């Protein structure tokens, strides 16, 4: 299906919308990376290093959670409803 060719360069607001869309798409990746960091933490069985206190771990995990929720809410509400991969949002005047 022939799509109408999109402009190569966008005006500022469309450009921002697109980057917002990118951020929204990357959010899950960002969250995955942050939440997989605990796999690097020293295990309780490893006695050579000071283990991570559970309260710190709680702060970390729930802190990431809150950040992700806020970012997601921000991105979603800044972004008008995209159809078909957000291309509709790229209309230039």
């Amino acid at each position, binding site marked *: 299906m022939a799509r109408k060719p999109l402009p190569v360069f966008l005006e500022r607001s469309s450009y921002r919308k697109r980057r917002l869309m990118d951020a*929204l798409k990357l959010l899950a990746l960002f969250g995955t990376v942050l939440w*997989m960091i605990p796999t690097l933490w020293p295990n309780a069985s490893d006695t050579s290093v000071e283990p991570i*206190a*559970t*309260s710190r*771990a709680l702060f970390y995990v729930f802190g990431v959670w809150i950040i992700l929720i806020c970012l997601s809410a921000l991105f979603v509400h800044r972004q008008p409803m995209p159809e078909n991969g957000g291309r509709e949002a790229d209309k230039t005047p």
Partner: protein
Amino acid sequence: MTSLNVLIAVCLAYVALLFFIAFVAERAGVQGRGDWLLRSPLVYTLSLSIYCTAWTFYGAVGNAARSGLEYVTIYLGPSLVILGWWWILRRLVRIGRSHKVTSIADLISSRFGKSNVLAIVVTVMAVVTVTPYIALQLQSVTLSLSIFSAAEQGAVPDTSDANAPAFWIACGLALFTVLFGTRNLNVNERHHGVVIAVAAEAIVKLVALLAVGIFVVWGIAGGLPETLARIDASDLGTWQTSGSRWATLTFIAAAAFLCLPRMFQVMVVENEDEKHLRIASWAFPLYLMLISLFVIPIAVIGLEVLPEGSNPDLFVLSLPLSQGREGLAMLSFLGGFSSATSMVIVATLALSTMVSNHIVMPVFLYLHQGGASQSGDVREIVILSRRLSILAIIGFGYIYYQASGGSGALASIGLISFAGVAQFLPAMLGGIFWRGATRLGAMSGLGVGFLLWVFTMLLPSFGQGAVLSTDIFESGLFGLGMLRPQALFGIEGMDPIVHAVFWSMLLNTAVFAAVSLVTFPNPLERLQGAQFVNVFDHSPQTQGWNASVAESEDLMIMAQRILGSEEARALFADQALAQGLSGHLPEPTPDFLQLLERELAGSVGAATAHAMISQIVGGSAVSVHDLMAVADESAQMLEYSSQLEAKSKELSQTAAKLQAANTKLMQLSAQKDAFLSQISHELRTPMTSIRAFSEILRDTEGMRPLEKAKYANIIHSETIRLTRLLDDLLDLSVLENGQVTLNTQSGNLSDLLDQAISSALAGAANPIRIHRRRLNERLVLETDLDRLCQVFINLITNAQKYCSASEPELRIVVSEDQGGVVVDFVDNGDGIPLEAREIMFEKFSRIGAQDSNGAGLGLAICREIMTRLGGDVTYLSDAQGTGFRVVLAQPRAVAAQ
């Protein structure tokens, strides 16, 4: 002290309230009121909380009490999935809506060519994997009841005699689900009532857990800093989770979130609007975060406060009870009850849809071959089969609960289920992202993953020696060390869950990909694959029906039995109206059949709907052969049309030739007319003067002899002119009729040309200058020399007469061609106009008005003569001036020595 009876009364009241809510919502849904609530993203988000079951409510605390923060992975996975909604969920929801998918089995079977076998495989797997989960709910409710009864009796809770309540709970849940879930049939009409009830229960469980959490943190521990200090000081005070378990559990939870039949039901099937996903993308992680927020505090304080040996799975209940907060305990119990009931309702609903659509209905249709339109009421049978499925599924759950002894920790049972449904992930994601995924690939991947899951996770979960003997655990299946259920391929020391998930998912994916790569999908699979993968590009159209045989009436009867007679009539009447027909029955156009199939698919699943329509339409399900036939047909048509094209080209060429011939004929006819008037003029002119002068001679008296001689001369010369004209005509007619006899002699060309030139130029006042190369002319010819000479004379005379140059010249060039002599006569005149060249060799053709005394027969005679002599005379169009070429076929032209 809360008595059991009060508890049961509260439960019943709660259930009655749920019924009431569901009833009101359903009424509102039917009447189209309350859309702002029924179709709001809030309700959608809350309904997603069906993910949080009794496992969450009780089991998370138990899990946290045993292994610290690990429990949170079960919520991190789904959070990531819904944060990444744009990638997978958006696609799933779009596919679900455009293809009227009713379940995950329907999705997978639909994607892989509406394969019923695959649907059955997925359904069976789903039933097997979800059964432990349902058992888990039974167990948790039974446990929570037991703790109240124990508290009543003042004894330590004892779970061994809990079988009787478990049975009644199972019955209650079954009744509840049957009443709730099978009231209306079409899954695509969506269970407004169920969804609203689930949303209400979501609020109850969140509020209950938060209330207990707040009570624990601020009521028992004395504030946030104190709680944190007590956490760090407890046994759970340090990070204990291994990295591999952390990552594996997150992954498995994410996979299960996508693949669990009940999640698929609320997330995809019950989805009203894709936009709801956007709200849910932050609201649902928020819900998950809140529900898991107080788990660690409850676990830590529970371990501290409660007596040694208390079941940590029930801390949520036993903590408030131990503090004498019965109201809170009651709320907490309701929360747990909500979690269990909502999960069981939606899960059995989803499963029963799958079982009835993919197992019962196909079997029914098979047993009633060709009877979809004649036999009994299919609608009743669908509902009955659903109800029976519900009972069976809950029955399985109860049996599993009995068999496993109700002793396992809640979390580990839940994980077994999760790992089981995660086996759907490769086929599902492969199906919606990869067009190359094939049915055989999906089937093999699912099979391998499922077998590995059974062997490494499900069977060992009953304990060593229960189903698998201790021997198998130690030395492997069939004594093969490679096949130990918890150390496959001889790799030991992995955590059992990580081990099972790792191997089953890895081999599942690998086999799926490998088999897909080497097999070839059938056309329907490829069509569906393209539609699923490119769901955002395509208008959602599946393949059409060839409806030539389909009877609208039969379709109507069948549709009535599945959709209900009112709905079916309305649908048919709408379609008839849309087609511009006045009756109630629309024409069975492919579009209509497709729409009908979609509608039916909403009730009985895509594969069954496809099969039912194909029965009526006359078994015209698109098979490979059909498609091949279609392809052949179009190839034939292409060939035929190219043949037609060639023929029409030929025809138009012929027409052009005819046109040309006709034009020539017209020219000839015009010429002949022109000649006739010319010839009559030519004949008349001398005749007139002959008559006039002979009359003068006859009538004039006393004419002088000189005058007489003059007049007689005129008469004589006119007679000669007439004679010449008649001679020419006669000559031509003789030549044309082939009556001429040739007088073959041999002679020298040079001499012949000399003779011709002297004859032609004899008596000319201003003879044309002739250029010749005599050296080339020394050839001996064997032909009718007189006739040839006549041709030469004619050509030279023409040049003499018509050359328009001021100093006319004629070059006579003789050359030898292959087996012939060529004589060119080229003058320095203007040449002959293009349009005249065509006809100048015809009889009576005269060029221009200058040719006053010729009759236009000369060149025609020349051509006739040359044809007789076996040669030709042609116009030399590339000569400088007017040129004629005489070609004389000569077997051997010998140079005259």
